[in-house]
């Protein structure tokens, strides 16, 4: 499903890329199984259920069981894609993710949909803005936040090839394509989407398109802002981050997540030790969001091309006072 914005590029719901890839994989590999917690509609797995009724497990509204049953299926040689709304999958089943998936090292693929503030007006119970912090703290768990349909598709296929637990965080917010045709996703490898020497913007998920817009506007002011799509948060692309710190001297991170312990925190942990440069960490500033649509909330918290641009401009100005 795509939606045409009034004046902008074509927009896509990454859940469609997820289910499309999953159905492809299931056709080619009989080990692929979908496990879901009642949310057949919000995970968009209706077509999968139609085609693969015998490989579709609905555990009901029971997220702890959702993850544990996935781990048990993996023990039996299946490749389970364990799907649910990100806030419930990650928070309710955190110990199951830690013990049954990561510590047990089972071949479980966790797919959290409607992450970040995608649920908008439904409120903070339904926002998933702590999940990256929680999950990247867990050893032996890949954490991936794709930016667009092509990357979502490839991340799902890469998760299928990888032996071991993976968490993929997808949104339901419409996003444009941000990658060139032929883009190749790899775990732990950032994509440099804009070159630049003055400052670096590191983003993932729905923030990547906004980072690109910010970079394009900054270019008009003579500021060359590098843009890295850091879709893999655990484990980070250390080389790309340290090169950015060394070569551009300042880093803005932008994520649809609390500023506490997410992408910005991960980058800061590395940069502060290996190549200290001034940073700005943009995200939800440690509060429960007020009522509003996802778009409203991103604007409200300055998670916009304007907000990113202002932070980047400030870093450049502070580095070269004149």
């Amino acid at each position, binding site marked *: 499903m795509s939606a045409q914005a009034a004046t902008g590029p074509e927009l896509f719901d990454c859940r469609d890329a997820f289910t499309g890839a999953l159905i492809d994989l299931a056709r080619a590999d009989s080990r692929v199984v979908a496990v879901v917690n009642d949310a057949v509609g919000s995970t968009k797995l209706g077509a999968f259920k139609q085609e693969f009724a015998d490989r579709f497990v609905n555990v009901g509204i029971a997220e702890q069981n959702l993850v544990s049953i996935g781990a048990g299926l993996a023990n039996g040689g299946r490749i389970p894609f364990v799907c649910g709304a990100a806030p419930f999958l990650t928070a309710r089943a955190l110990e199951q993710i830690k*013990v049954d998936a990561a510590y047990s090292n089972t071949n479980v693929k966790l797919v959290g949909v409607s992450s970040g503030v995608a649920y908008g007006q439904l409120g903070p119970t339904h926002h998933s803005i702590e999940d990256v912090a929680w999950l990247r703290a867990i050893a032996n768990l890949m954490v991936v936040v794709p930016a667009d349909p092509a990357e979502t598709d490839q991340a799902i296929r890469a998760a299928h090839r990888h032996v071991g637990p993976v968490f993929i965080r997808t949104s339901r917010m419409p996003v444009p394509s941000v990658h060139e045709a032929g883009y190749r996703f790899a775990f732990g490898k950032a994509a440099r989407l804009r070159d630049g020497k003055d400052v670096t913007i590191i983003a993932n998920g729905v923030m990547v398109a906004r980072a690109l817009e910010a970079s394009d506007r900054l270019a008009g002011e003579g500021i060359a802002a590098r843009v890295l799509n850091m879709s893999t948060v655990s484990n980070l692309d250390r080389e790309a981050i340290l090169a950015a710190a060394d070569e551009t001297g300042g880093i803005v991170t932008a994520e649809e997540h609390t500023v506490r312990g997410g992408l910005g925190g991960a980058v800061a942990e590395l940069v502060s030790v290996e190549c200290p440069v001034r940073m700005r960490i943009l995200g939800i500033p440690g509060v429960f969001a007020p009522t509003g649509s996802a778009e409203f909330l991103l604007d409200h918290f300055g998670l916009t091309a304007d907000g990113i641009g202002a932070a980047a401009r400030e870093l450049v100005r502070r580095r070269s006072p004149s």
Partner: protein
Amino acid sequence: MQPLASIAPGELARRARLVRQRDLEMVYAAGLGHLGSEFSATDILVTLYLGILRVDPADPNAPDRDRFVLSKGHSAAALYSTLAEAGFIEIDELSTFMKPLSRLNGHPDRNKVPGVETNTGPLGHGLPVAVGMALAARMDGSSRRVYALTGDGELQEGSMWEAAMAAGHFGLDNLVAIVDRNRLQQGDGTEQTIRLEPLAEKWTAFGWAVREVDGHDHAALLDVFRAVPFTRGRPNLVIAHTHKGNGVSFMRDGVAWHHKVPNADQIELARAELRGEA
């Protein structure tokens, strides 16, 4: 990959005594452990590993093996001692229990110890994972079975009832859950803490076929496991009536022995009793 189908209950009793003796020494040397819960579970573990499970210590990851899950992961020393008796690990290795860098952690790790299927420790994980294992077996059209040994206090975890409801709904008659019904949890009786009874009725209401057995009677345990599936289309629940610390008189039914370690006098008495001398 066949169990010793003809193993006699008396032989199981002899081997269970060895398993308890080694378990006692492991916990005494480590200064840590859960002897009470281990001795209540030992006869169940020994009966399964030596008489029922289709597993092969020479090929512990054979795809179509039966699965055993120790949902009450704190009884790890009893599991390790049983795995050694069944040939999955060396008996000599048991002395490394909880020593620095030992494979034999205080709770079992499948990535280190052959024969362990999933990592447990926090309660309420093993049975839900076992439900997934049983679903996988059914998808494969396999006759393999999945066994999960749970504590009784563990049934206070909500996730156990998520699993109970799912297994009942899916009609997993290849799944066997055994409740080690020793009636004690860490600090008090289960019924004094948060009541479990009427336990059989609860499981029946969740769609399981329930049998009750003396969890220290090897012949009765063999019989009940050989009667699986109790009812076609229903998961199997065995309420094994046991005694915490069974085998050592001063530990038996003592709530303090959940994770108490014997002192120098107590160890001699316990050793003598387990040798059958006291």
